[in-house]
């Protein structure tokens, strides 16, 4: 009788190492993975169907819930798509405020990653620090928009309301604090021998194939490819701001991706400072019509944003009625979580699964919507 040495292991959906609610079916030989298959559907809400039943403004309340760790790029993307179809102008100040919100959301999401990445290697102290520090950003959001997680702040034609008095100073104070903390994070996480040994040479993406496989965001930049929607197709006011996109980390492993994110953390802080400095005075929104009667002309638009996990693209179609015909999001996790993850996991160790998932930024609510 032929001996079959492989084991089948169902990792998730209830598993503390899995980011979110999804399942990976693993074929194991010893503790080396020979085959991985992603199974999703545990978080499917049918957003794209629900949006067909909401009018253009009502869609905002559910659109931001598509990706939980970083909801603002979804709002901004959708608002920009509607503006493109309609030809609606956005005031200059509103664009700056949008960038401010996007970058704060990026920082909040990076801090969550700072907790998840070492956390999946067993270093829990980092999570206590960074999630605690994330609360300071959420406090800013709460002051600005009224909500900690979901904001519904960016609208077509601008943002919902102006910054409160003295908000810029408070943002700068938090930025100073985070910059100081960034050095502590370095000492706790990047100087840690355990983390270095776990991260180096694990979860390698072939740099030659990365573009073709649809890899975006930090995993792509971790392969030494300089690609960022913010410089490829500058939206809002990113072309007026000065920031760098890293292309010096070329190994394509978890360690490179971690260094990319570490680098981007500082860049985001710098962008926030520039935005506060350069922000002009003026109105913050162009009035939109009565939402019940608001009709967007027939047309479609494809817009892209750089979220913390990579390029996210919205395809919005209007059929000339007061409800969207189709709003379809392709998030970065849609590619990272399926074909890429299945590929990268082959040959990896079972203990590294959640480590690799965290570094690729797998976000199940975005994968199945």
């Amino acid at each position, binding site marked *: 009788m032929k001996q079959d040495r492989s084991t089948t292991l169902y990792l998730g959906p209830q598993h503390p190492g899995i980011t979110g609610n999804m399942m990976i079916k693993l074929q194991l030989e010893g503790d080396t993975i020979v085959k991985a298959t992603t199974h999703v559907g545990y978080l499917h809400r049918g957003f794209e169907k629900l949006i067909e039943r909401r009018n253009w403004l009502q869609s905002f309340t559910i659109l931001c819930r598509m990706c939980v760790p970083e909801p603002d790029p979804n709002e901004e993307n959708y608002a920009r798509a509607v503006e493109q179809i309609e030809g609606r102008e956005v005031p200059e100040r509103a664009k700056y405020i949008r960038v401010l919100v996007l970058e704060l959301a990026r920082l909040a999401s990076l801090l969550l990653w700072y907790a998840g990445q070492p956390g999946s290697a067993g270093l829990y102290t980092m999570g206590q620090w960074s999630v605690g520090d994330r609360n300071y950003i959420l406090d800013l959001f709460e002051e600005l928009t009224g909500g900690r997680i979901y904001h519904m702040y960016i609208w077509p034609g601008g943002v919902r309301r102006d910054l409160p008095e003295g908000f810029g100073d408070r943002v700068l104070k938090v930025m100073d604090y985070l910059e100081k903390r960034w050095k502590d994070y370095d000492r706790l996480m990047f100087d840690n021998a355990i983390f270095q040994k776990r991260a180096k040479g694990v979860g390698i993406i072939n740099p030659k194939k990365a573009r073709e496989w649809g890899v975006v965001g930090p995993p792509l930049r971790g392969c030494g490819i300089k690609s960022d929607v913010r410089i490829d197709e500058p939206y809002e006011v990113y072309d007026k701001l000065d920031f760098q996109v890293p292309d010096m980390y070329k190994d394509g492993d978890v360690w490179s991706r971690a260094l990319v994110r570490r680098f981007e953390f500082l860049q985001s802080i710098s962008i926030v400072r520039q935005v506060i400095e350069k922000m002009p005075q003026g109105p913050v929104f162009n009035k939109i019509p009565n939402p019940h009667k608001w009709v967007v002309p027939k047309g479609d638009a494809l817009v892209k944003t750089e979220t913390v996990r990579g390029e996210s693209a919205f395809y919005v179609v209007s059929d000339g009625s007061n409800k969207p015909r189709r709003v379809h999001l392709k998030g970065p996790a849609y590619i990272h979580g399926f*074909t890429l993850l299945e590929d990268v996991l082959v040959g990896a160790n079972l203990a590294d699964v959640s480590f690799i998932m965290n570094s690729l930024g797998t976000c199940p609510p975005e994968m199945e919507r």
Partner: protein
Amino acid sequence: MEQELLDLLVEHFQDRIAGSVKSDKRVEIFTSTSAIEDVLMYAKNVLGYIHLVHFSCVDWIEENEFELMYAIFSPKSKITIMSKVRVDRENPVAPNIDYIWRHANTFEREIREMFGIEFTGLIAEKEMILEDWIEMPPMRRDFDTAEYAKKTFFDRPGREDAQDVRETIIKRTGEELPEFSKKYSR
């Protein structure tokens, strides 16, 4: 630059495609299911449009057609081509492109499940997101999600379909709507 690209494509494919420059950095082309593979292969291998950004499907029930949208991006020219293909709604079949881009496989699986479009030669599990689904594919326009939810799940009393808050209050209390707020009402 966008116009040059469009001319190049039209010159190569003659009357198999038609297109226009949609906006800055966006070129829109219309083609058929028989030509789409050639167009994508040509764009990828010759013109350098190596990144599949998006692959979407829209149900145009009035015209009895589905529209597939393939968005491809070139890191060199920074232009995105949106190629659109119409598929008959009664017998929806489209070519499989996961040999050109591996990750198209995921998009195709989802579209097959949500719209019921068959991709010739697509090898993947039938079930991706839904489990034990027996109704028609849910993303089709004629599938009524609210009715299905009402039939299948339990409503808590007091929750009814999108009502106007002001009208509801009037109904409940009988008070008159102020003049200024009438223009905001439906």
